[in-house]
Every structure is written in structure tokens, then in C-alpha cells.
């Protein structure tokens, strides 16, 4: 396994209380695999990603427990210096908003070259040359090397972000809502580019998004997060066509069908729970249409069948998953 995360728990200590952002998340990503991490705001997707990169601000954040191994190495055991060699080099990240993730006072070429020079044993000239090549790879004319981020459109800025992420030929890319800030026709361009480059560089990917449509375009496995937990995980087909968790099913029923007139939508009632005060038992039970008595008190154990994991008492009730 390229990346393996076991029982990750992250909390933030704030004046309002302790925010339980990630509560026991486990998943694996194989070489060349693409995992989609799906969920609504506050589900803990970004916190999960940042803790893989060891980018959680401490304080207020506390990584309580969890074991992250990457390429067979235990990332928690690494020193800060050793982690720097992995970050941006072996694992890199694409952020949501390319306007704030790029430095506005440096040319885009320099920013890409900087990443390369920091990690690869290259002269400045070689790094510059490589940066130009990377720009061409993301379909930006190398001649625009000396331009600043504000001279680019939103879609092009995100391509610069992709070029920077791929510059050191990483084994894995974490893309955090990479197309959310883009218009739909530009999103289609960027998704196609990401898919092509992922295949060309044979990079594994973790794609964080709230958009199930984007997941369907890019991922081969899907993990659905709710209130800091992965409530269901499976192949794209399992999640899209045979979802088991009431929350996953609820998400699909919330989306109007673009292929039908007068499609019905069925909202999930209620709101996301307060992460400072999570409900007892199954965290989804206050909103669940199939809530049973046991759901209020017992936390469902993961139940796995044919590689599809679900955390729901509907499946563990008969003791099948224990």
C-alpha cells in the first residue's frame, strides 16, 4: 500500500470547546489509486488531508492518535526536517483557491522553479528549464513564465498549482476541492488535465470534494465522511449504485436529476451536528430516516463485505460485522 492511515483522530481546542474534527479515520490508497473523499462542510475532509501532510496548526490542533504510513515509512516517526523532504516532493497538494495559494509577488515560473530547487539536486538554471516544461505540460505557453498570478485567469492559476504539485514527480497528490472555485466549462478542462497527468506521471491521488459528480469523473474508490468519520467506503460502482449507508443514499437523493423533468429531491432533514458536541451512538442518528433504538446509544462498528465498508447498525445488528 502506498499510503495507509489507521485510526486518525484530530481535535482543535477552541474557546467554544473542543472541536472533534476527525474521529478515527482509516483508509488505504494503493499505487496509482484515486480515492475520493466526499462530505459536506465540516465533515473533516480538509483536516484529514492536512494531517497527512503534517500541516495541522498546533495549537489549536492536536493530532491525538493515528498511524500514517507512506511508502512503508511511518510518517509520525519522522523529524520535521525529514518530513520537509516528503512534503511537496513525494506527496504534494493542490489547494482550492489558486488565488490565495500562489504568491502574488512572485512570477509563476519562479514559484514552480522554487519547488523544484528545494527538492531536487538541480542548478537554478536547470530548475527554471524544468519549470518551463511543467508549464507546457499544463498547457500554458512557456513564454508566460515571467508573468504574475494576477495576469492569469482562475483556470490557468489552478493549472499553475497543478504544475507545481507535479514538478517533483510525486508518488501522491492530495487535491483539496481543486475545481470548486472554477466555472463548469473550466472545471471540465481542469478535470481532464488532472486525469491525463495522473496517468502520465502514474501518481496516486486523494481528491477531496463535496461534488459527487466530480468524484464520478476522476476516482476509482470513494470514502464518504460525516462528522469526522468515514461512514462508508467502497469502489465507485459500489457507492454510486449500491450505497448502503442512509447518509450516502440521502446525499444522492438531494441532487436534482439533470436528465429528468420535474425530478424529485428529498432533503436530509436537520443539520450537521455541532462538532463540539457530537451525538451519542451513531453520529448520523438524529437525521437518519432509518434510526433505530440501538443507534442512539451504540457506535456502529465497521462492517465490510466485498471490499465495501459501512458503519451503520442496520448492517451490524445481526452481529454480521462483529
Amino acid at each position, binding site marked *: 500500500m502506498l499510503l495507509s492511515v489507521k485510526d486518525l483522530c484530530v481535535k482543535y481546542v477552541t474557546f467554544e470547546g473542543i472541536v472533534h474534527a476527525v474521529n478515527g479515520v482509516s483508509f488505504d490508497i494503493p499505487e496509482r489509486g484515486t480515492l475520493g473523499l466526499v462530505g*459536506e*462542510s465540516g465533515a473533516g475532509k480538509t483536516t484529514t488531508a492536512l494531517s497527512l501532510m503534517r500541516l495541522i496548526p498546533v495549537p489549536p490542533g492536536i493530532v491525538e492518535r493515528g498511524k500514517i504510513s507512506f511508502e512503508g515509512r511511518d510518517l509520525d516517526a519522522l523529524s520535521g526536517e525529514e518530513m520537509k523532504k516528503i512534503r511537496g516532493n513525494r506527496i504534494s497538494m493542490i489547494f482550492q483557491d489558486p488565488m490565495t495559494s500562489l504568491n502574488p509577488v512572485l512570477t509563476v515560473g519562479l514559484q514552480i522553479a522554487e519547488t523544484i530547487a528545494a527538492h531536487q539536486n538541480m542548478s537554478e538554471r536547470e530548475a527554471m528549464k524544468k519549470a518551463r516544461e511543467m508549464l507546457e505540460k499544463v498547457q500554458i505557453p512557456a513564454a508566460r513564465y515571467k508573468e504574475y498570478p494576477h495576469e492569469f*485567469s482562475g*483556470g*490557468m492559476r489552478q493549472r499553475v498549482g497543478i504544475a507545481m504539485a507535479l514538478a517533483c514527480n510525486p508518488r501522491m497528490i492530495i487535491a483539496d476541492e481543486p475545481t470548486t472555485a472554477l*466555472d*463548469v*466549462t*473550466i*472545471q*471540465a*478542462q481542469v*478535470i*481532464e488535465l488532472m486525469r491525463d497527468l495522473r496517468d502520465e506521471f502514474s501518481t496516486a491521488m486523494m481528491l477531496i470534494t*463535496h*461534488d*459527487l*459528480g*466530480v*468524484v*464520478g*469523473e476522476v476516482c476509482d474508490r470513494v470514502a464518504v465522511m460525516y462528522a469526522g468519520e468515514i461512514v462508508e467506503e467502497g469502489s*465507485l*460502482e459500489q457507492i*454510486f*449504485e449500491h450505497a448502503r449507508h442512509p447518509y450516502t443514499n*440521502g*446525499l*444522492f*437523493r*438531494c*441532487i*436534482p*436529476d*439533470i*436528465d*429528468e*423533468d*420535474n*425530478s424529485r*429531491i*428529498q*432533503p*436530509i*432533514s436537520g*443539520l*450537521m451536528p455541532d462538532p463540539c458536541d457530537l451525538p451519542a451512538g451513531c453520529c448520523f442518528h438524529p437525521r437518519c430516516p432509518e434510526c433505530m433504538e440501538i443507534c442512539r446509544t451504540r457506535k456502529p462498528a465497521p462492517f465490510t463485505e466485498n471490499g465495501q465498508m459501512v458503519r451503520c447498525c442496520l448492517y451490524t445488528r445481526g452481529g454480521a460485522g462483529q
Partner: protein
Amino acid sequence: MNQTVNGTVNRNERDPLLEVRDLVRHFKVGTGVVHAVDGISFSIMEGETLGLVGESGCGKSTTGRVLLRLTEATSGSVTYRGKNVLTLGRAEMTAMRREMQIIFQDPFSSIDPRRTVGDTIGKPLYIHRVGTKQEREERVDHLMELVGLSPRLYNKYPHELDGGRRQRVGIARALALSPGFIVCDEPVSALDVSIQAQILNLLEELQQTMKLTYLFISHDLSVIRHLSDRIAVMYLGKIVELSPTSDFFRNTLHPYAQALLSAVPVAKLHRARERIILAGGVPSPVNPPSGCRFHTRCRCKMPICPEQEPELLDAGGGHAVACHRIHTLS
């Protein structure tokens, strides 16, 4: 205000409630003139929802704002129940605002953070001097119930509410004066999908019970299909296609609209479709391309396209398209 008769609404499909003719809104900027809205015409029937769709910068929000004179038009006319809204005097316009309201995209910035929920919803009633203080409070209670806000939120401040509830406050405020027409400017774009579905259903229910007419602005084609009776697609300040919704999705005519529709990622497997990826980005609205504005990115471009601007013409059954290939489009 309860205009419902046995829960059904008599829609008068023939009278346009609102008629927009050759509407133009230009903005002067340092480098020239932004052609935000550049001569668009459409009408909205009573009880209808017209969906206005397009990408950032195409002029859809400006259109919505010009209709309510939140920004003044450069030229053109907007007729609401026979009156030209754009030429009304100050007092008449104030009266007109009781009829025409707006729900904004971002419930975080469109509500005064220093005002309580009850105050915010009651403010339009106060401004228009409706009823006594007690009557206004009763009306606010009623409105809160109507949009699904618990009465205990009356004295809460916006920062104590989540996005979905804030958007309900925005909706209640828009409904306070019992308007006939509401511009919904991306009302669900800032919300999570489970909350988005709640608000969409609420907007539909309210339309039924209060006989509302909507101009529904959105970039999300699945939301537009769900809610709209007709749909207008904008590109660089122009309407390129205007059609009954079901017809539009069955038979999309304009090459831009086709590309837009094909680019939507859909959460389904095994969905047969042709994906059209447009080259480049949207040109600057300061110097829009000559002739057809889409010709720089169009895959069906002909020699005439950069020369002459195509008119929005009916291609049959009320399905209008602005494209020189109108006769060969199918």
C-alpha cells in the same frame, strides 16, 4: 396573503408579468467599457419560473439587479404589470419595491450582522409602514413559521445561525411585503447539498402557496432544470438560447449551451454523452469579440460568425436561439 384556493394556484399563462426589452447595462472602467448586459429581451409569465444560467461574468446577476434598479440600466425597458420600472419616480419606485424583491446568494453578507432575526425580517414592514408594531411582530412570527424558522430564533443574531437558516431569514425578508416577483440570485450556491435540497423545496412550496413568479439565477444546470419552466442561457452579456426547460434539455441548440451542458459532472455511472471541452476561457467583456461573441471558442464556426451578430430567433415551439446555424441545428 393566503391566496391559495384549495392548495392550487390558477396560473395565468398568457399575461407576461414582466417584460424586458433591449436591456443594456455598461460599466465604465479604467480600460474601457464592460458590456455586462448588452441588449437582452425576455418576458416572464405570471406564476412562472425563468431560469437564467451562465458562467461567472456573463451578466446574469447584473440582469437581476437591473430589473429591481439596484443598479441603473444604461438603456432598455423593464415593464412590470404594464408599468416601466426604469422610469418610475422615487415614490413610485418605493411602492414598486413591495412587488419586486430579491434573495441573495451569500446569506453571510446579505444580512446585517448587528440586527436580530426578527428585526431583519420586520425591517421591510417598518420601512413601508405596514400595520402597527404589534401587527408587524405577528407578521414576522407568521413569516418565520412559513419559512421553517423556530420562533425561539426571533432574538438571535445572524452569527448564531448556520448558512441554511440564514438563507431562510433572507427568504422571509423577501416575502415580508407579499411580493409578486422575486429575483433569486444563486440562492443555494453557498449551501451544502443536503441544505440546498431543503431550500429548493421551500422555494417551490412558497411559489405554490404565495403565487410567486421567480427569476432564478444559477450556474447549476441540474438545479435550473429542477425548478424552471423556461430557461435562458447567457454568454458575455447576451442571451444565446431561450427555451421551455424540457425542450432545452432534450434538444440543446446553441453550441455554447451544448458545451455547458456536456461539462456538468453528473453523479451517475454509465451515462452516455458526448463531452465537449471548450478551448480557453471567456473573452473579456471590455472588448467582446465581434459578430457572434462565442465565435472564438465555437466548434461550428462559419465565415459569417465574426462578421455579423446572430439574432435570437424562434427555431420552433418557443425555442429561440442566437446562432447563424439556426436552420441546420437539430
